[in-house]
Structure formats: C-alpha cells, structure tokens
C-alpha cells in the first residue's frame, strides 16, 4: 500500500461517524458576513486606500497622467537610484523623464544582478482600500515576483479609481488564481525583537505608492 492509500484509508476510517449519504455540499457554510465594510464613493475608496497605506508606512503620492513621469523621476532621484528595474510591459511614458539606467529583468539575470539595482517600478493588478493592500499578479506591467522583492525601493503605480476595490472578497473575485500573486501591505517589517516594529528585513525597505488618476 502506498502512503497515499494509507493516509486516505485512515481519513475514511476516521470519518465513520459522517453519514454515508452526506455530500460535502451538505455541510452548511453560512456566508452572511459582509462583502464590504461600509459604503463609499470611488473618491472615498481611494482616500481610504491612501490612509491605510500610510498607516502601514508606505509613502503615498497622488498624481495625474501627465505628471507621472516627473513624479517617478523625482522619487528615483530622491532615493539616489543609479539603476532601475523595469518590467517588460510597463507604460513607457511613466519612465519618460527618468535618468537612471533601465535594467530589464531577463530570464538569464541572476538574483545577484538584481541585488545591485536600487529601485523597481511596477504597475499593479488590484488594490484593497479596507486593508491598505496592493496585489501584483505577474502581468507584463508588474513582472516576475522577484523584481519587486530584491531591490530596496519599490514604486508601485495604481490606476485610480479603476484598480481599487473596497475589500478582500472583492479583490479575490478579480484575481486569477493561476497567476502567481503577491499581496503587499506596507514595506517589509518585523516585530520579532521585543515587539519593536522594524521596517525592511528582507523585502524592500521603502514602498512608494503612486495613485494615478485617469
């Protein structure tokens, strides 16, 4: 008998008390919890996102389509970035004014090469107002998971209000589980030493979120 058969047989014996005819759908799951906590206009939703992101010590910026390239340039300069990682499908206009050398993440580039890069700029798949979370799904404007992880500075551009949802249930509805997903709420942090919160252990120490109005 394989271990698979052993474990499954044990499971079935252990469940002798479950009536034979009971289907898994027969066990009721009450789903009367809320889909959204409160009701908001699109503007209020974006405002809440900004507030919750800031509470997690992400740096939040608002800007319009025609200013985004200047803002990105300024943020990169302020961080002192020499090299910036750019996912293949990023809107080129966002980087139009950026001085740093653009690095494209290639399959062949090693993690060590990425480690030498100062900043990364990505888009996002969806942002959740209630929890202050941005979600990346590896689309061409976001790139592979590692590019938003290894550099110390992550600039994430969120199109508002389109990409903003209120709640976790709404976000899951929009996401495709087949894609690799990374949910980010503020910069990397630890509270392991006497519960003092310290930002930036392994992920980016600085997370800047640009709320781009369309």
């Amino acid at each position, binding site marked *: 008998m*394989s*271990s*698979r058969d*052993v*474990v499954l047989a*044990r*499971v079935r*014996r*252990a*469940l*002798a*008390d*479950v009536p034979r005819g009971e*289907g*898994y759908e027969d*066990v*009721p*799951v*009450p*789903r*009367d*919890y*809320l889909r959204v*906590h409160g009701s908001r206009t699109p503007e209020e939703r974006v405002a809440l996102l900004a507030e*919750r992101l800031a509470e997690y010590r992400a740096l939040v910026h608002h800007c319009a389509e025609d200013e985004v390239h200047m803002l990105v340039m300024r943020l990169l300069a302020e961080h002192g970035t020499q090299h910036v990682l750019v996912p293949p499908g990023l809107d080129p206009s966002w980087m139009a004014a950026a001085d740093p050398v653009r690095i494209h993440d290639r*399959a062949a580039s090693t*993690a060590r090469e990425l*480690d030498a890069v100062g900043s990364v700029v990505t888009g996002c798949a969806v942002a959740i107002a209630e*929890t*202050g*979370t941005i979600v990346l799904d*590896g689309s061409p404007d976001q790139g*592979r*998971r*590692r590019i938003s*992880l290894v550099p110390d500075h992550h600039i994430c551009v969120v199109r508002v209000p389109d990409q903003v949802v209120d709640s*976790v249930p709404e976000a*899951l509805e929009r996401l495709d*589980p*087949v*894609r*690799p*997903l*990374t*949910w*980010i*709420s503020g910069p*990397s*942090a*630890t*509270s*392991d*030493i*006497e*519960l003092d919160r*310290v930002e*930036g*252990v*392994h*992920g980016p120490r600085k997370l800047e979120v640009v709320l781009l109005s369309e």
Partner: protein
Amino acid sequence: MSGTYLGMPAFPAAAASSTQDARLRGNLRHATHTIRDKRAKAVAELDDWARLRAAGAAVKDRTLRHLDHYLEQLEESVTAAGGQVHWAADAAEANAIVARLVRETGEREVVKVKSMATQETGLNRALAEAGISAYETDLAELIVQLGDDLPSHILVPAIHRNRGEIRDIFREQMARWGRPAPDDLSDAPAALAEAARLHLREKFLTAKVGISGANFMVADTGTLVVVESEGNGRMCLTLPETLISVVGIEKVVPTWQDLEIFLQLLPRSSTAERMNPYTSMWTGTTDGDGPRTFHLVLLDNGRTDTLADTVGRQALRCIRCSACLNVCPVYERAGGHAYGSAYPGPIGAILTPQLRGTASELDASLPYASSLCGACYEVCPVAIDIPEVLVHLRERVVQGGRVTRRGVKTVLKPAKGHAAERAAMRAAGFAFDHPGALRAGQRLAARTRRLHPRRLPGPGRAWTDTRDLPPVPAESFRDWWRRTRGEERAK
C-alpha cells in the same frame, strides 16, 4: 536546551522551573499583553467578526468531514498545475521524502521559511543527518537556530529572548553559519534586523532549494498560500529553482472564495494587523517566474488519529494564529517551552496529546496545562472549544477509552498508578496556585464537574479526591453557557 523536545520534563516540572525565571516572565508578559490589546482593536474594526468566525469554523468543519474528497481534489489540481504531490504517513516519512528530494537536486544547503509542520517533524535535524544544512530565514527562527534553542511562541518564536541576548547570539554564532555579524553590532532592533538581512541575503541569492509550509491550500485551484511579514518567505518561495512545501493535511480549504474568510480572520487574530505585509500565492509552477520544480508533501503524522475523535477533531480547524497563547494565564507564566512541542499554549495542550498520544508523562500532563478559563475559546477565530477538548482529554487520560493511534483503533488503559494523576494534579494545582489563573478558572469549574463522573473507581480515586480543591463558583454550567455563549451566538 539542546534543540530537541525529546526527553523534556512533563509540563508541571517544566512550568515550575520557567516560572522561576523572572526575565522570561517579564518578556512574555509584555509581549502577550501588547499583542492581545492590539488584536482586540483590530477585531473590533469589523462588525461582522462573529459571522466571519462562524463561516471560518463551518468551512473547516466541511473540509474535515470530507477530507478525503478535498485531498484528492487538491492532489489533482496541484498536479494539473505542474506540481508533484507526495504523501507522508508520519514525521519520519516526511523527512525522508524531503531529504531524498533535496539530494536529487544535488544540493547540500536549503533555505527555509518558518514552518510549524517541519518543526513538528524535526526536519532540520533529519536533514543534518543526511548531510544537508537547513537555514531558517525568519528573523525569530534565525535567533532560535543560532542560539541552539527552541521556539516558544507560534508567531514570535524568540519572544523569550530580549535584545541583549539576541545581540550576543548574533555576535557569537553568525560567523559559524555564514556572514559574521558586524563588530560594532548594537542591541538596537534596527541594527539587529540589518545584521540578519545581510547575513541571510547571502543565502537567499545562492540557494537552489527552498522549503516552506503553507497557511492554506485551496482544493479547487491547487493554490498554496503563505502569509508573512519580513519577505523571507517571498525569497524562499520565488528565488530557488526547487520548492518543497511540507503541509499538514488539515490545511486544505475547499474553494478560492473561502480565502476571503481566512484572509480576514488570520492577520487580525495573529499580528493584529488589517493585513500582514506579504502574502504569497502560487499554483503549481509558472513558466519563467519562480521555482521550476514544485513538490508538495502532505503530512498526516497523527492528524487522522485526531480526526477520528469526534470531540477532538475540532483542533484541526486551527489556523495557527496564536491568539489563544496571548490570552492564556497559564502560558503567560509557564512560557512556550514547558509545553514540549512545536505547538505551545492552549492549542498545544489539545493538539500535541492528540497528535502524539498520551503515552508519555509530558503528553499526559498537557490537558491539565490550563485553568479552563475559556479565554482561548473566545479569541479563537475558528471557534475551537479548547476547554471542551481539554476536559475530554483529561477524561481520556484518567479513564482510558477508545482511541485511534497510527490509524489503528485501540483501547487506552486508564492512567497507571498515581503517577499520571499526580502529574496532572500538579499541573492543575500550578494553575490554581496563581491567583489570576484561579479567578479565571473558577468560571469553568462548574462545567468541568458536570462533564466528569463525581467519583472515579480504582486509580482514579485520588484524582477525584483532590479535584474539588478549587472553589466552585455559584454559577451553574447552564447559566454560564447562556451568559457567555448565548450572547455570542445572538450577536
């Protein structure tokens, strides 16, 4: 401390020595109270908390009642997404599978995300015996590993260490494992975190194999979920070429939609955050992004025995948030090590004796490592009635009864002689010697009495002779139930 739980003294003895340790108690008290207060605020923010909690419990119950179905579905969807599924009936088998998979890659070093399942199976030691070095990458786990120590809390495993101790451990031990700590390392948390960052980055950038656990596995999509804060999890899950995840079979949830419940319940109960800094989800392998090879090792190791017990089964709902630890008056005094397993606190007191059986004096004493105050039930986001299971397990220790061990039904004999009862009573006595625990415990004393026969025959007599020691409150079980649970339900 020698990095192993084997041969640990029974709970009362271990608790007696740890309660003497003023520094440990100070650290613990500060930590548990801080997290506890923050958690209450985070939970109060959601006015549907009671409904989310009921839904979470119900989803887990549905899963457990049809676990065979969901495991087969999970296996199918993980395989379809490009993963390979392995089954392990016990710890030794899980460790052997992982060691073989690592060896097949030709590598001798692995990076690990914090994983209670591999702590439970003693994987690091087994890998070391196979000539493979496993590096823990969670900051607290690193502190524990470098200090040749054991975790003492589910969420903050090094909660028993203060900053001065951590600095000394880093200074003395980091060089042995890789990049040494800077000479002028201070005890500021930011400096310590930076030292860990530099030390571990070397490992992340070169590791070819990563080992993880998972918080959830979604049956219908084959998605695995890891929830964390530091980014070490993301490093281990995405940079290596091979990823091996060792996960208890009870971690499966039926559908993608079910994550909406648990991703609300877990962070708020655990770190008291609206959402933890990082959550990673992956479904098999993705071309060009992340590991090219993904192995999922499904671990039984006593879980099916736990499943066979219709009262104790609910312990398998646990999502390891650690909220029950932070409210437990006994945990606060005894510390996590006294529980002698990867699972400390109230959940450890009911899970460990079910996973391992109650043959050892330590495991037989665990159901008594509680004051039955009920605080653990109240905070539990999946509504596990820990006091109910504790009482049930006490009965089993004293009276014996039908149990399943390693998949085989057997009849457990009542605890022999007076040894177990004495161990048990000392544990209970310990709780009741402490005024805070006692006050809390009185609330449930009446309930315990109802669930026990008044007087036990034979060897159980000594136990019944002494078990009325704590004063019993005027309030009856029924009243208590109506006042506490009734309200809860009505919410």
